[in-house]
């Protein structure tokens, strides 16, 4: 078996995940809800734990229903808790609270479960190196559906992400569209975390999007930069993890970080602040 065969699934997983997440990342950064995916992943993990308590194995269909169900409840909470104008409570506060409470509740649920405590870690760790082709095909199929959904509704989602007051002026039900946005986001997060782990999913979401925002304000250009950045750093990260025999996920995360620093230097060297309109 060649090195290439070993590394290929991890690299393809990186491509699939970055393809979906770099796009959602642009929305998430524009909305300033950076930690929403960590929070949703934790809420989904809580769902899995509750499923285990109810007697369903975490890898069973019902286990998945529990995790997705909880992620959708989380999505509803985030849709309803947009910046509260009169109290000025930022949405990040709600996201942070949801994260902490979900994590604590999962610990409580686990303390009542028989065995399986090992899985509490497994739920959030993920392992990009041991992903199977079947899993990748399923995830890719799902992401194509979510991508099509977002493409069809892109005008509304983008308007709300970029210019929420204008969206309200046009009479859009921001909460409804937000629920669709966070709901689809929850679907993506619950299917990418078991493959890549929270840390890597978070990095794929935010780093390419931020890198792209350094250079352009146009969505198309941003996506092109984000996708290229995600794909290239995935390839380098996967290769470095082989070269130095390091855990693959963590190597990709640090490579993404290094890539961002490099791009920031490029931007600085080629003239500060000249963001192409």
């Amino acid at each position, binding site marked *: 078996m060649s*090195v290439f065969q070993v590394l290929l699934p991890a690299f393809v997983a990186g491509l699939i995940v970055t393809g979906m997440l770099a796009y959602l990342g642009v929305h998430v950064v524009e909305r300033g809800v950076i930690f929403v995916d960590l929070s949703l992943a934790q809420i989904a993990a809580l769902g899995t734990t509750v499923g285990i308590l109810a007697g369903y194995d975490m890898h069973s269909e019902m286990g998945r229903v529990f995790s997705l169900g909880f992620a959708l409840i989380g999505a509803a909470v985030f849709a309803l808790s947009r910046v509260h104008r009169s109290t000025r409570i930022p949405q990040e506060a709600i996201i942070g609270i949801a994260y902490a409470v979900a994590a604590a509740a999962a610990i409580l649920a686990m303390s009542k479960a028989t065995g399986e*405590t090992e899985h509490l870690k497994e739920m959030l760790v993920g392992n990009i*190196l041991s992903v199977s082709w079947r899993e990748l095909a399923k995830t890719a199929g799902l992401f194509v559906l979510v991508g099509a959904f977002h493409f069809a509704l892109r005008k509304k989602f983008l308007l709300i992400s970029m210019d929420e007051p204008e969206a309200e002026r046009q009479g859009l039900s921001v909460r409804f569209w937000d629920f669709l946005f966070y709901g689809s986001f929850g679907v993506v997060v619950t299917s990418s975390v078991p493959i890549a782990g929270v840390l890597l999913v978070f990095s794929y979401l935010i780093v390419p999007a931020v890198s792209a925002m350094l250079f352009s304000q146009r969505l198309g250009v941003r996506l092109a930069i984000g996708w290229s950045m995600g794909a290239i750093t995935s390839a380098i990260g996967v290769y470095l993890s082989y070269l130095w025999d390091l855990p693959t996920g963590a190597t990709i995360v640090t490579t993404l970080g290094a890539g961002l620093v490099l791009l920031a230097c490029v931007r600085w060297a080629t003239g500060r602040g000249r963001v192409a309109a």
Partner: protein
Amino acid sequence: MKRIAVGLATLLTLAASPAFATMKVVTSLQDFSSIAEAVGGPRVEVFALAKGYQDPHFVEPKPSFILKLSKADLLIVAGLELEIGYLPPLIDQSRNEKIRPGGPGYLDASAGCDILERPTGTVTRAMGDVHPFGNPHYWLDPDNGRVIARAIAARLTQLDPPGASAYAANLAAFEAKLTEGQKRWDAALGPYAGAEVVTYHNSWPNFLKHFKLVAAGYVEPKPGVPPSPAHVVELINLMIEKKIPVILIEPYFDQKTPKSVAEKTGATLLTFIPSVGGVPEAKDYISLFDYDVKLLAGALAAKKGTRP
């Protein structure tokens, strides 16, 4: 310069290639590699996935793991779901049919061993942290080590018949060493038969049973889930009442709670090594017991001296 390099390389190749093809053995734990190395001698080349200082439930897979697995002739696992968190997808990825469960190159070391706490009947929540197939920390009983060594020798003989006599001889030597070691260990811990200890969680039932020690309680019944205040109070009172002298903990768990319990009860917190390689001194299966037994006997002796 180049000639020297080529010459050196040839020499190395010659030195490294014995008259027989080496069997490539991958094990989930260093304990099994140590035993496989003892039994296989120069006929085997071993590689352990989890190092002795790592939590064997979670090993962060690296690319080299899949490569090693893809070339392995024999995979030795603890079984009883110990490796379920990371190993099955790696076996899939390696596409090595030989080492799949049930294949000729897959050896579940738990077969034939004395496995404790196999739940009988239905598992209920009241039973606490239950391993559905029994406690997977069974290699810490030297009698089980003997069973494992015999199983490895038998399997190696099956896979590599020309080595039969070498494996038999190596096995006999290993068993002799183990017997000698057991005399040492029994002598060291014998005086404390029946002593009660507290362990961090339920990882040592085989070790304790073998040396006739008793686990009176656990600090954190579930690792990672801090114990409830009521449990801590109960444990502290129990330890004071029964004058329990030591708390045993694995090196990879957080020491905060056990440390505070030890301080409140005057017990000694001992970092017990569960696997070969956990500390440099525990370099093989025999020295693992030498290390742990010496540590525990020392602590028990010190406590006995100071107590009425």
